[in-house]
């Protein structure tokens, strides 16, 4: 049955691998050339979206046809009338496609890490690519570690499920892309910051060498707040203007010394609060976010199993 699962998906897998190899070749060439010249810039801000989309496109390309193309050609009726139950049939197919998806994403991850270092261009740090980046900050976080595997496997399961319900591989792929993007945006924008309780940093000015851990972390919020509070009171936001009237008056006075900010804050009974995810939370966040996407993927597979058990021909 392993052989059957592999053989049925073979051409799809080869097509995806060839596309990935072409992409990898481009990375290799540009990485080596730029390493020597340093003048030719391949990297634009728009390229980051290519890297964001990559796990999704990969997963959907391998997942969407898994059931949909069989249903399209009617071969599911052949497969389901052999002596293997549908659930087992699906399990074998899922494993073959899933392993391929995960392997490609992991290999690409290593290549990209080398490449960003080689071209010494990275939109999220001064230089040096992923390896010297502040990994906890959004862009580096999304492109390093293990989350990309979670994204790709989620997209794979999404493609499988959509393919089972829509029964057209092309449509399943097309519909899968915005859903994948929405899930990523939602988790990155609203959920990730709260997956692990953030750290709090306070001082009077918000400046100085003591803010280093914050700058090396992922800053979520910062504000001048009343000195008895570490976050905005219920019903209020982190907006400065809510708390800083007397501070602004103080700051408006001329001839203030360099530590005027701290002085005014102290006078106004305010302190500077920064909420952030320190670099030390990197693996915890990576693990939880990967688990969330894998969990969503498993949920979709559950729906898929139900769907093929009640398949209506």
């Amino acid at each position, binding site marked *: 049955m392993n052989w059957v699962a592999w053989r049925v998906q073979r051409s799809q897998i080869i097509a995806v691998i060839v596309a990935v190899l072409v992409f990898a070749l481009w990375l290799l060439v540009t990485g080596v050339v730029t390493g020597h010249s340093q003048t030719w810039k391949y990297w634009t801000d728009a390229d980051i979206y290519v890297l964001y989309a990559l796990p999704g496109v990969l997963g959907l390309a391998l997942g969407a046809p898994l059931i949909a193309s069989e249903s399209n*050609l009617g071969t599911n009726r*052949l497969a389901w*009338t052999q*002596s293997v139950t*549908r659930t087992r049939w699906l399990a074998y197919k899922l494993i073959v496609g899933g392993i391929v998806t995960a392997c490609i994403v992991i290999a690409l991850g290593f290549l990209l890490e080398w490449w960003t270092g080689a071209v010494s261009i990275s939109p999220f740090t001064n230089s040096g690519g992923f390896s010297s980046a502040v990994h906890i900050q959004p862009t580096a976080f999304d492109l390093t570690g293990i989350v990309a595997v979670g994204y790709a496997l989620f997209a794979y399961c999404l493609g499988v499920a959509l393919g089972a319900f829509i029964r057209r591989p092309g449509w399943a792929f097309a519909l899968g892309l915005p859903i994948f993007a929405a899930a990523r945006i939602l988790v990155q924008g609203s959920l990730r910051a709260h997956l692990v309780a953030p750290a709090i940093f306070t001082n009077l000015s918000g400046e100085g060498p003591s803010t280093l851990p914050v700058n090396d972390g992922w800053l979520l919020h910062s504000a001048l707040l009343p000195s008895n509070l570490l976050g905005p009171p219920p019903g209020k936001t982190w907006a400065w203007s809510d708390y800083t009237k007397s501070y602004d008056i103080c700051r408006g006075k001329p001839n203030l010394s360099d530590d005027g900010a701290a002085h005014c804050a102290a006078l106004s009974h305010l302190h500077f609060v920064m909420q952030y995810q320190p670099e030390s939370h990197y693996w915890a966040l990576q693990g939880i976010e990967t688990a969330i996407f894998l969990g969503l993927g498993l949920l979709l597979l559950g729906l898929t199993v139900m769907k093929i058990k*009640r398949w209506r021909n």
Partner: protein
Amino acid sequence: MNTPTPAVETVGLGRRYRRKWGLHDCSFTLPQGRVAALVGPNGAGKSTLLRLLAGISIPSEGTINVLGQSPRMQSADALSRVAYLDQDRPLYTDFKVGEMLRLGREMNPRWDDERAKRHLEELRIPLASRVKQLSGGQQAQVALTMCLAKKPELLLLDEPVAALDPLAREDLMQILLQSVEDDGTTVLLSSHAVTDLATVCDYVIILSASQVQFAGELDHVLGVHRLLIGPVDSVSPTLDGATIISSVIAGRQSTMLVRAEMPIVNPSWEVFEPTLEEIVLAYLRADATASQTRIEPLSRRERKSRNAIRIVQ
């Protein structure tokens, strides 16, 4: 060959497609070891019934028992005992013929590889050729070979002779008979070619207007149906306890096909024994008249067919 467990037993079986019934209130029993013909006009529900029995479609109402189990359960054991030939003959078209056999081998515990290879050799279908390069008839033969090599207890064949030339039809019928003799296989096959069936079948299921009109032994079918020819004003044969299946009036003469458990004694009718084809046609015609609007052109055609019947008799 008769065993207490029937090969197929359905009670009140129905399958609805949106607003229309594909099959409705269908009850019949097929004992083991028979070669049964499933006949009926296009759209009568033959394919629907076979798909339900094969477990790849789900009934909207009623119950099915196939070899003592519900096909809904889809256990590996139940699957291995039933082979199904879909009307579309789905095959993996990019597979080589030999790879299709390997699929069969890996997915079926009782697979008879020798038999499959011998069969294909007799048909001069090379194992090295790709499925998509075969003709329609050859593809049908490969699909059929896979059904036979599975060594099922019940063979469900949807229009098995449709794509075959007359010689191949003859061969197929021989193979089926052989398989029934050797392994006690029960065969249920649907077909339009009623004349082909009469020579091999010993059981008939007539399906029309989404319902089973008749199911029984061929001898019984032939025994209880009568062809009556007499003047238009003859006493209705229903007085003798007969059910009129179809009646054709041409000029002053009326031709009727009736179902009668008792002999027709009314002297105004000439009584003939109909052939299976005539009986099937009568049921099909009854279905057509029930739903048709243009009576005139149809009756003209029937006049011709009635002449043919008289010549036969």
